[in-house]
């Protein structure tokens, strides 16, 4: 399950992108997950078949890192603390690592559904 996003629409229009980028940066920082050392893709709910499959397809290193970030964030949350500044997720580290895989799986499912409902016309 990928999150709904306007990003594609905005990126296509340079003037809108120029206008939105500072706003988006402000929002991502304000959301607070970076202060717990998480990435945006760590916040995708796991409770769906698609995401579970995508997690299985993650490269081993990525999967380990993800679990590490999550545990660290839980720990911080329990202790009611934020990570020290140098351990915050930097904006350039906050890259989508899971959503491309989710999109791929969704595209597969869509293709399957399309092929299932295919009607053949012979001329």
């Amino acid at each position, binding site marked *: 399950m990928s999150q709904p996003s306007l990003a594609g629409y905005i990126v296509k229009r340079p003037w809108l992108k120029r206008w939105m980028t500072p706003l988006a940066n402000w929002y991502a920082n304000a959301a607070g997950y970076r202060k717990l050392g998480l990435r945006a893709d760590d916040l995708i709910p796991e409770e769906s078949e698609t995401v579970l499959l995508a997690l*299985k*397809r993650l*490269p081993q290193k990525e999967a380990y890192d993800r679990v590490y970030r999550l545990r660290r964030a839980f720990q911080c949350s329990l202790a009611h603390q934020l990570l020290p500044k140098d351990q915050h997720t930097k904006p350039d580290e906050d890259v989508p690592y899971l959503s491309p895989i989710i999109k791929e799986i969704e595209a*597969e499912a869509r*293709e*399957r559904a399309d*092929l299932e409902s*295919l009607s053949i016309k012979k001329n």
Partner: protein
Amino acid sequence: MISRSAIGGNAQLALRRQCCVKPANRRGLAAAVSGSTSFSYDTADVGGVKVASRDVTGPTTKLAVVAKAGTRYQSAPGLTTGLEQFAFKNTNKRSALRITRESELLGGQLTSYHTREALVIEAKFLREDLPYFTELLGEVITQTKYTAHEYHEEVEHVIKLNQKKLLGNVSELAINSAHGVAFHRGLGTPLYPSSSTPLSKYLNESSIAQFASSAYAKPNIAVVANGASQTELAKWVGEFFTEVPSSSASTLSSEATKYFGGEERIAHDGGNSLVIAFPGSSSFTAGSSYKPEIAVLAALLGGKSSIKWSPGFSLLSKAASTFPGASAATTHFAYSDAGLLSIQFSGSASAIRNASSEAVKALKSISDGSISKEDFTKAVASAKYNALEEGQNIEAGLVATGAGLVHGGKAFQIDQIGKSIEGVSADKLKSVPKALLEGKATISAVGDLYVLPYAEELGLKI
């Protein structure tokens, strides 16, 4: 319904004549015969890719890419099996699902399999769909993605099942073991990795992709078709195989095969099998090292009956029939530069023990020259029939031709094989088992080792 009185008698007659009475001399136009009835392959070189086709008349076509990437040439265990399983998976242009569904819609069938020397990717379809399937095969060998998730979710699973299947199959284990003992590396590599092979060390999606890049190169592949015209095939191959690299990343090579011989015994609970093997002749497509007398000897020894409800009249079937529960079969495995003449026994351990010593006696009697003229004639006829049938058989002919082409030999030409087998004389045949018995034999026993005989007990040298 029109009442009888409404139509005059004449009209009724005319009507009846029209629908029911067909003139005796009416015939359809003669259908143009597409293709010939010849069983020989036309070969050509299209932009570096070897192409062979046999234009057999019929509505269906079988098209295969034969790559010189069988287990003999794999650079690590299991790579050939892995590459075989990756055929028709996701490519850069379309997904595996789409490939399957599209070929289903066209009524095609897609398979991939391997032998010790060749990896075959094959499609069967209706004649008019040749362009589509040529494009598909070209795409499979150049554009496959070799993704990690397909390897873990689909390929690895099938390989593990294959390993388990092999573990339960006693006769397959015995044949693999005999090849290993006879040829060590190269041809001796088992056809499927055995269940205790440390696969995870060698096999992953990137090693398979690397193997593919060296296996699917122009000098390594041949496109063989059955039921397609040569011009048509050459045209489409010229169009769709342009992306195949003209030289492989790292050459897949295997040193010239040497025969070693020896004995291997494997304990197994699921049945018994004993293989006695001797060095044989290379396949017909290899050229000069082809020895037709080995094929005749295999037919003379026989084992499998060619008629129903009878043990048959070949030497081995006579030997085995006195020990109920044992069956024998002689097979000649021919490869590009070597061969293995194997006699395989299966059944209960004690029956195998007795039948195998009888079989060795039979071999000795041939070398003494005590075979009747009748037996000899029968063997030549049977060998000739087997060879010709194999050539006529689309499946075997396809692989033999492709393998012959990529190994730099010639295509499988059916009429010449018949001639060479006919040329075998009785004297020449006698000399063969003599030389075999004097040289080193290969013995593989799988099953109840307490009963199954050692080579020493059979009187064979190892």
